[in-house]
């Protein structure tokens, strides 16, 4: 298996950007509604289609604005598998994937921009970049917003800002978030304590994959909770400030862990490497847990010969829908476990740095 037959290139998965060792991606999402329609909660199928047609026209203007080539896809035209792939790549929400009646998504060619049409709000403009690049993602998202706004009338109020379906998004409509990999804090049993303090500073934390029941891959998503009052830049600065603190804590937790139990850490990392490069069949949960250990080992230079981006890529490609997309057919659980193991072996082999080959 060489390139990604069947799975579209997604920019954030390629890694890179500042603090990319700990921050997998930065996302800016803007919630917007059109003035003349009820919110999606009360939107009929015909009105929903009207909005999609309206956005089809806007798609051409977006392509002309130099942010890439944009395509509008209707949920109804996508197979359930293709929709799940978009969910696993963090381009649409699970809720949106189920909305065949009025749902659509506009994507640019490197998938750094996605606009959900008729999700909880009429428009959810998202920009997703690798590493800690919230200001950069905001610059892109606000440009997309400006292009759209030149062609539609937004529901906006001087006092309350952008009017959103849920009052928790009111005002700026912005949700800035970072996906952070925090194995050090989890191993040091500090993650729970730290993350539960988030509410006090106006932040929210979620897991990478909502459907799981544990800290899958030690990846957490941290975002702003407040949207009304401060400006977008202030909210982003707050989140960046908080993320930097979290990263400092993670780095010192890793250092302490390595200092106090170097053999234990090395053993954990090498066992993960051994299993990942040899396992013949592997479940999604085991894969993600071991991949997190592998990445920790790469970051701590225990495994300096493996390129780190393999983690970002594999935590998404080993998910059920992406795997089936790669295989080009539906697979049962056993077949998925076999393919997952093969994919991991091949991708890690491909991620070995040239100097050691």
């Amino acid at each position: 298996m060489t390139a990604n037959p069947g799975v579209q290139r997604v920019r954030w998965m390629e890694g890179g950007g500042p603090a990319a060792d700990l921050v997998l991606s930065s996302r800016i999402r803007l919630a917007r509604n059109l003035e003349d329609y009820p919110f999606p909660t009360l939107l009929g199928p015909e009105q929903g289609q009207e909005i999609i047609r309206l956005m089809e026209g806007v798609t051409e203007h977006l392509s002309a604005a130099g942010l890439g080539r944009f395509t509008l896809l209707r949920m109804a035209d996508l197979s359930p598998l293709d929709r799940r792939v978009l969910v696993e790549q963090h381009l649409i929400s699970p809720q949106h994937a189920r909305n065949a009646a009025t749902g659509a998504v506009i994507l640019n060619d490197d998938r750094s921009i996605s606009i959900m049409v008729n999700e909880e709000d009429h428009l959810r403009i998202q920009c997703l970049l690798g590493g800690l690049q919230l200001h950069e993602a905001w610059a892109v998202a606000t440009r997309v917003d400006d292009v759209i706004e030149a062609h539609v009338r937004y529901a906006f109020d001087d006092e309350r800002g952008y009017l959103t379906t849920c009052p928790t998004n009111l005002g700026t409509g912005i949700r800035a978030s970072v996906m952070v990999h925090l194995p050090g804090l989890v191993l040091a049993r500090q993650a729970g304590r730290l993350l539960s303090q988030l509410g006090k500073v106006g932040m929210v934390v979620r897991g990478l994959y909502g459907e799981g029941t544990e800290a899958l891959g030690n990846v957490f998503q941290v975002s702003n909770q407040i949207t009304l009052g401060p400006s977008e830049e202030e909210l982003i600065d707050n989140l960046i400030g908080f993320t930097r603190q979290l990263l400092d804590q993670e780095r010192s937790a890793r250092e302490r862990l390595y200092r106090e139990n170097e053999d234990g850490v090395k053993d954990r990392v090498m066992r993960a490497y051994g299993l990942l490069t040899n396992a013949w069949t592997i479940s999604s949960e085991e894969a993600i847990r071991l991949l997190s250990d592998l990445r920790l080992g790469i970051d701590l230079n225990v495994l300096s010969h493996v390129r780190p981006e393999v983690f970002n890529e594999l935590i998404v490609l080993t998910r059920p829908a992406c795997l089936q997309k790669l295989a080009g057919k539906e697979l049962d659980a056993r077949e998925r476990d076999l393919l997952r193991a093969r994919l991991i072996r091949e991708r890690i082999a491909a991620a070995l740095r040239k100097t050691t080959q």
Partner: protein
Amino acid sequence: MLCDECGQRKATVHLTQIINGKKTERHLCAHCAQRHEHEFFFEPQFSIHNLLAGLLEGWQPPAGTVQDLRCSRCGLRYREFARTGLLGCSHCYDDFRQQLEPVLRRIQGQVRHGGKVPSRAGSRVQLGRQLEQLRARLREAVAREEYEEAARLRDQIRQLEQRVRAGEGWAGTAGPGAPPGGPGSAPPGTAPGR
């Protein structure tokens, strides 16, 4: 409401779980919730909406008052909003203003937007400011008895007022991207319920 687990402290975390159509609710205090935090972080049910609905639930006044309040444009009942945390249209913000303000204060801390303004609204704000300046200049011109200047300013003000009335800044007449049906495409009360 007391915590389901310890039965001693006040429940501040409200969880609703729907598994295979079966709904269960749990109400925990912050202390007991901490022991279950891994569940909250990774279950989609623990969303901001649930938090909001939890807040609203605690705030609901007795039935027969605010409960029966409806949005005059989309018909959404306040009761429904309190259950889901989702509004029906932009007009709900006006019709539920009184009820929403304390909730907004609680979840957002502030109630005045301080961020980006769409350029269309921006030009409306600019027109307003321009108008204020012209009116001040008119008052000065009258005070100085410069009637020719005052007449010129008066005409300028009238022109500007007309532009404001025509809704400039909101592309008054349907702009290139205005919905095909125009504002009439979403007549009050015709939106089907969820």
